[in-house]
């Protein structure tokens, strides 16, 4: 893979999608307002849960805010990259425009996963970071290199798991043609990630860890933030992330053999 070429193409992707989005200023403004309201609403909801009972699943409100911060960052990443690109796969397949992607001398997964960005998602990412910085202060967390490295690794793993799940579902469009609902279900599951895993019953914990590993996505990075995480959990998240990335890639390449293109 020619890294220089891919960086050049990605620069062009950024340029063209930003230019496309900036054509519609009002839309961006509405998205920004939605992001602020959504974060405020989530924190308010969380505070209601913790109002009567100071601790849920062993987590205090200030600690649970970390999960909310990580969730906000991930949701921002979802809105910036996953939503505009991965929902487009369904459209590409239904309308047959995937033909143009497949005939380009560039990796098709790279192309369809990163071609567009939605700049309003950046605000969410920033809000998530501010919330995390605030949480570091109120939870009196010591910042050091190993702490930051572990945080970064677990967040990258979370992003990889989320991306792979979404990409996996979108790929099934090659057979089922319409899978909008499935990606919506995934987004709904992601909302679950705003709450600590321990606050759920044992069976739900198993479901959200093994079947749909949403719990890995927010809980483990949050535990790292609070210094509560055990090394085996971090290693497990790394393995799960690599496994998901690898299998979603293989699944895409396998599915393309069944692509029949839309009729003209």
């Amino acid at each position, binding site marked *: 893979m020619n890294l220089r070429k891919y960086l050049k*193409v990605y*620069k062009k992707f950024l340029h063209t999608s930003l230019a496309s989005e900036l054509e519609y200023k009002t839309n961006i403004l509405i998205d920004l307002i939605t992001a602020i309201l959504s974060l405020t609403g989530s924190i308010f909801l969380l505070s209601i849960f913790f109002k009567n009972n100071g601790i849920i699943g062993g987590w205090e409100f200030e600690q649970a805010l970390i999960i909310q911060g990580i969730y906000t960052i991930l949701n921002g990443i979802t809105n910036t990259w996953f939503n505009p690109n991965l929902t487009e796969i369904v459209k590409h397949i239904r309308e047959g*425009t995937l*033909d143009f992607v497949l*005939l*380009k001398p*560039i990796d098709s997964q790279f192309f369809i996963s990163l071609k567009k960005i939605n700049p309003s998602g950046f605000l969410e990412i920033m809000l998530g970071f501010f919330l995390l910085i605030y949480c570091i202060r109120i939870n009196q967390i010591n910042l050091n290199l190993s702490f930051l490295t572990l945080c970064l690794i677990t967040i990258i793993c979370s992003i990889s798991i989320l991306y792979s799940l979404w990409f996996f579902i979108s790929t099934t469009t090659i057979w089922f043609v319409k899978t909008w609902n499935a990606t919506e279900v995934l987004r709904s599951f992601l909302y679950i990630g705003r709450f600590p895993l321990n606050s759920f019953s044992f069976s739900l914990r198993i479901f959200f860890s093994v079947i749909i590993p949403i719990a890995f996505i927010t809980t483990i990075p949050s535990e790292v933030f609070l210094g509560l995480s055990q090394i085996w959990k971090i290693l497990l998240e790394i393995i799960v992330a690599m496994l998901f990335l690898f299998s979603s890639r293989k699944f895409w390449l396998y599915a393309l053999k069944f692509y029949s*293109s839309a009729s*003209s």
Partner: protein
Amino acid sequence: MKKNIIEVRNLSKSFDISLKEPGLKGTIKHFFRRQTKSLEVIKNISFEIKEGEIVGLLGANGAGKTTILKMLCGLIYPSKGSIIVSGDLPYRRKENFLKNITLIMGQKQQLIWDLPPIESFYLNASIYDLDKFEAKKRIKKLSDMLEIDEELFIPVRKLSLGQRMKSELLAALIHKPNILFLDEPTIGLDINAQRNLRGFLQKYNKETNATICLTSHYMKDITSLCKRVICVHNGSISYDGKLDLLLKRLSPVKEILIVCRSEKDAIKLENSGFSVKNKTKNEITIKVENNSITSSLRTILNNFDIVDLYINEPPIDEIIGKILINKNYDI
């Protein structure tokens, strides 16, 4: 002698299609228990295309033209048989192969809708690893050939269909492909835009010696661009050869309308042994075989007092129409 750039041997393609009975009952049945059937859309076809050739794929809707085109460019895996395009197996979609071909579809677009075409051109240039200087040079050359200038800087959504199609062509040709696959490139365009596009393709073929393989329902595209046609009927090739030969075989006679000086001359001509189609006063229409046109005209001009004459070719759409509906004609 020119070498083969496309070689297709015993190619077949089957698709699984789902069958649905009409009505609510059929819909419910279809939802719970989908019945599928394997449909062979391409049946054991073989052909070759030489470097620099322009070949037209002719066939009715659903005959399999687009499926052939998509297999040739590597989008669809063949079920049986082999395809070699420019020395490669298309379905592997290797980088060098993809840099050598392009697919243009009249009904689908790759340009970014909200931005001017120039943005899509530079994006494509980066995908094809062209530097800015080279990309600029090629955009200039192609835009001159396509006679577009200001349109490059207007958002695609505001361009007319003709301007959009020209821009689509530019986006698809920026990497100087040697093989062009065109699927109904002139669909929906007005007559002038169609003519311009055909002119451009001719010029491009002449200048770059690119091989062009196209499908079109507009006969003018086929007659003005393709010397050779491949007729596809229900997934099989029913004719592969020169277009003029096909037209001659399918329409062996021409009609000549003769305006005589007087009605008396017309009657005399009517009784002189020609096959008469119709006669009104001093005008008479006769049918003459293609191979005896010259001798017949000489006889008429030497022996009859005529004012004017017109040679009418039978409408090409009518002739091609015969191919599209009938597989078993003798050619």
